[in-house]
């Protein structure tokens, strides 16, 4: 069966919405923009579902494995004799799955925003940005080569910049969007270098060719990349770790996560789209896309595991202390993505060993539904109480029954309670971790208990705790805001029952999903324990949490300050990079000996002197430097640096 007749429409429809609304939206469609964009996306969603149906059920497997199909390929540019840059659409289990996830969640967000963003002055602009983002994300997941994925990757960054900064009158939103853009761009430089390394040795940009070249043990490319090394680490490891750095930036992995909590300044439905189901999982997707290469390099996989586990635990601890409900969700996203990452890290390539890969993708799939549900639910809550702070909420269960029920379902799902979706995917991840490493397993288990605790802390604080102020409340929101909640809640229950391993696995062959009751007991018990603890502390208004916080003192304070990571970053970027201090080595030396403040003052003074003397405005000085430059080149290249 031929996909090429319609497949290109899936990414192009949101693009069309972007162009249409971007150019003419404000003039002609300011009221109808939402409906138009939603219809475009509805078609794209239907097409994605149809593609998935065709791919998994009609065309099915060749032999016993799902094949990677290049549905469209167009040589966009011939860069040199042997490197050509293509634009293509590649279909394999994970890209088909992502097509469905991205279009579906995006559709839900489009529908939800009809009510949520109603009356905004720049309504059409908002929908055009959503279209651009969806287009970039879809382009990213179907990419058939490294250049294409990098291009869409950057485009995703740029369009999320526009979306996070949508409320550009708010200084905090502006700062947040800028921070997100720059931090992820910083991570992307790793990605770029990784691409160049892999492309240079793999002698191609195309995924299939690179994977082929770099995983065949006898190929000249494989020998070249494993024998080349830099500071004792092979070029292959460098390439993969660099690529992973890009992924870690987008997926908000420790220590590149600092942009994510601040990015909550954007409109809440945007967070549901970007920070739950799509952009933040791009890093996981990237590792999965190159997984055959990752799987032959233990060092790179170890890095992935360590970063994943650290992020999972670290974010879960911080999430317990946050009082802004969106920030809790932001940290929980980071924690869950950490789960997916280390699941990939502990995975092997084929057969039983590939369980981690399947589990990571499964968790990505289920997480997309319940996390976007949580964000949309939080959006509905914020819409009602006009605040992000927990202390302004409480007792909302009577005012917003549908939001309440759906939020509860999502919380149960993320806490990993049977029979909700999160239970099944988390179960597989834990099993994969158990098979590989006890340490990872224990941390994962602990994190899972913490997850249940902070999610229910959130839940009880919003919907129980105290009696709601009944004044001036304008109802739960329009039908368009309730519909996505209901649909996503259904998915959050149903998604777990899919036998995911049959469709998505690292080598394309079906992986039977096993279920061990004895194994499931521990996480389940921890989850329920976490929920009960949260219930005891937060179900009714009392001073227990405060007492607990006081008794835990230092740790709580450090966690609520996010372990001072932001401060550290500010220090490094503002003081170190942006004021560039002459010789970093000398600086550190001096800094250690003479103390912090002295050396910063001295270095800044030195720098401004340097700059003053460089750009003095006096031509005679310029000419002197000119001459000095020549003299230096002459001395270096005639006498010192010879071939």
């Amino acid at each position, binding site marked *: 069966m031929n996909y090429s007749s319609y497949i290109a429409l899936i990414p192009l429809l949101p693009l069309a919405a972007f162009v249409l609304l971007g150019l003419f939206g404000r003039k002609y469609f300011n009221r109808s923009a939402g409906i138009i964009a939603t219809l475009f996306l509805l078609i794209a969603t239907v097409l994605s579902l149809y593609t998935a149906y065709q791919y998994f059920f009609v065309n099915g497997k060749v032999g016993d494995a799902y094949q990677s199909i290049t549905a469209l390929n167009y040589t*966009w*540019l*011939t*860069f*040199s*004799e042997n*490197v050509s*840059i293509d634009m293509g659409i590649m279909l394999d289990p994970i890209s088909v799955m992502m097509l469905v996830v991205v279009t579906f969640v995006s559709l839900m967000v489009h529908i939800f925003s009809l009510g949520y963003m109603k009356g905004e002055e720049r309504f059409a602009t908002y929908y055009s940005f959503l279209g651009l983002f969806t287009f970039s994300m879809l382009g990213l997941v179907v990419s058939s080569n490294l*250049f294409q994925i*990098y*291009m*869409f990757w*950057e*485009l995703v*960054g*740029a369009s999320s910049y526009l979306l996070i*900064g949508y409320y*550009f*009158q708010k*200084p905090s939103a*502006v700062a947040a969007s*800028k921070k997100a*853009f*720059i931090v992820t*761009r*910083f991570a992307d*430089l790793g990605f*770029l*270098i990784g691409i*160049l*390394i892999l*492309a*240079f040795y793999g002698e191609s940009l195309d995924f299939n060719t690179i994977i082929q070249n770099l995983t065949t043990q006898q190929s000249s490319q494989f020998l070249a990349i494993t024998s080349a090394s*830099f500071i004792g680490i092979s070029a292959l490891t460098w390439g993969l770790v660099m690529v992973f750095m890009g992924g870690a930036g987008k997926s908000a992995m420790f220590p590149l996560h600092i942009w994510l909590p601040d990015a909550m300044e954007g409109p809440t439905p945007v967070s549901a789209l970007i920070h739950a189901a799509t952009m933040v999982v791009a890093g996981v997707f990237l590792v999965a896309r190159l997984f055959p290469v990752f799987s032959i390099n233990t060092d790179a996989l170890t890095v992935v595991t360590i970063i994943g586990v650290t992020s999972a635990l670290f974010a879960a601890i911080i999430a317990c202390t946050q009082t802004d409900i969106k920030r809790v969700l932001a940290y929980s996203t980071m924690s869950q993505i950490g789960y997916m990452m280390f699941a990939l890290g502990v995975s092997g390539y084929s057969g039983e060993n590939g369980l981690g890969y399947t589990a990571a993708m499964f968790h990505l799939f289920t997480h997309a539904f319940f996390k976007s549900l949580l964000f949309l639910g939080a959006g509905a809550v914020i819409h009602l109480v006009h605040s992000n702070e927990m202390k302004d909420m409480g007792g909302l269960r009577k005012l917003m029954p549908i939001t309440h029920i759906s939020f509860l379902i999502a919380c149960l799902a993320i806490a990993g309670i049977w029979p909700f979706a999160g239970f099944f995917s988390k179960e597989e991840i834990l099993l994969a971790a158990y098979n590989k490493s006890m340490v990872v397993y224990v941390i994962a288990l602990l994190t899972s208990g913490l997850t249940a605790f902070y999610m229910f802390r959130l839940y009880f604080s919003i919907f129980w705790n105290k009696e709601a102020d009944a004044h001036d409340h304008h109802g739960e929101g329009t039908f368009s805001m309730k519909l996505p909640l209901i649909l996503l809640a259904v998915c959050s229950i149903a998604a777990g029952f899919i036998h995911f391993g049959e469709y998505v696995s690292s080598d394309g062959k079906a992986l039977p999903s096993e279920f061990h009751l004895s194994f499931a007991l521990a996480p389940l018990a921890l989850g329920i324990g976490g929920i009960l603890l949260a219930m005891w502390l937060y179900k009714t208004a009392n001073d227990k949490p405060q007492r607990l916080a006081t008794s835990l003192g230092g740790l709580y304070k450090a966690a609520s300050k996010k372990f001072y990571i932001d401060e550290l970053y500010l220090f490094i970027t503002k003081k170190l*990079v*942006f004021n*560039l201090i002459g010789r970093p080595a000398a600086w550190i030396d001096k800094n250690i000996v003479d103390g912090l403040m002295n050396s910063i003052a001295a270095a800044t003074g030195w720098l401004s002197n340097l*700059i003053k003397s*460089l*750009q003095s*405005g006096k*031509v005679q*000085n*310029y*000419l002197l*430097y*000119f001459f*000095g*430059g*020549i003299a*230096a*080149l*002459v001395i270096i*290249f*005639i006498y010192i*640096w*010879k*071939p």
Partner: protein
Amino acid sequence: MSNFFLLLQQELLLTAIIFVLLFVKLSAKEWNGKTVLSLINILLVINLAAGFFFKEKGTLFGDMYQTNDLLRLEKNILNLGTLLISLQAYNWLLKHKHAIEFYVLMLSTLLGMYFMLSSSNLLMFYVGLELASIPLAALANFDLDKKRSSEAAMKYIMSSAFASGLLLFGISMIYGMVGSVGFAEITAAASENPLFLFGFILIIAGFGFKISAVPFHLWTADVYEGAPVAVTSYLSVISKGSMLFVMTSVLFTVFSKLLFQWYNIVAVLAVLSMIVGNLFAIRQQNIKRFLAFSSISQVGFILVGMSGANAESYSSIIYFVLVYLFSNLAAFAVINVVSEASGKENIDDYKGFYKTNPALTWVLAVALFSLAGIPPTAGFFGKFFLLLGGASKGNYLLIIVAALNMVLSLYYYLRIIKAMFMDANETPVERVALNWSPKISMFVCVAGIVVTGIISGAYEYIYSLLK
């Protein structure tokens, strides 16, 4: 003899235009400003269009002059840029008493660049270079009533003279070693003899001066800031672009034997230019000065590509110059009209710009996105190709510095975007009324930024000329 006319078509056409302008100037009749400027722009359009019809290749004057498809393309790119600048300068020149002289001077420098590009002999190259430099000093002084403008001109002419002197010194040294100034002979006789290397380094410094690579860049900021906006954009795009073309071709062919030396020199200059350019750009308040430093770091990027030393990196450079031309000229177009309408040139003056001039804000934003290398603008593709070209030598240190500088530059480009869209301002720049000519120019630039990126033909055509 017919060969002479065919090969020199572009030069002859340009000379003819210069003469027409001289006659117009000298005629007793008092011309209407609008008529003259429209006439000139039409002539420039003809000049640009005609460039695409010439196909002849060959050499002249005993191998001193050569032309081929690649050189014609490079000249066409310069023609396009000149036309765009001329359109942007329309309002400024309308008020200026000496509009015609402006064009006579500007087109003379363009003619100089033509000869410089087509030279296959160091003397021809030097003559072209001087013709392309000296009138520029007069141009920099064209805001006749502004002191800063004269200061810029003085600084330019002095630095330029100094650089030329050293360049000439280098040429004479090479002549002394080789006994000829022809490119072919120098290629054959190139060696690592210290004297030859010394001459070679002096020549590189001459190039470095014109493209304002660090440490030969110091004149740039003062001259860019003081000169009229049209001249600044001409300096930063046309003058620099032409020199990059020549530099690439000379290094790749004439000095190909000294690959080790020039590869390392270029790498050093690239790193210095990127870092110093970016660090200074962060601190700037004047937007022209800001663009001066950002253009220094862009040149550093081009040098990264140049270090690749193969056909791909050659074509990436030409492609990037084209992209850079569109991006920078789009930015200058906005700065030009704003400076003309309100006299404001500081970044802070652009606060709240979106409120009063949304269309212009978007033009500037697209230009800055392209300069920062954000897809889908052409700047993204240009930078990626340069890196791909530069990476072919496997010098990852260079690539890492380049990538780090991409992040740093994003920071300061976003600063302007933020000022325009987000910052509040009680006295924003008032709504600027635009007439047709800057509008056309901006339209072409923005279309260029979008189209040259997405349409692959531009790069592939350049590459096909180099294979």
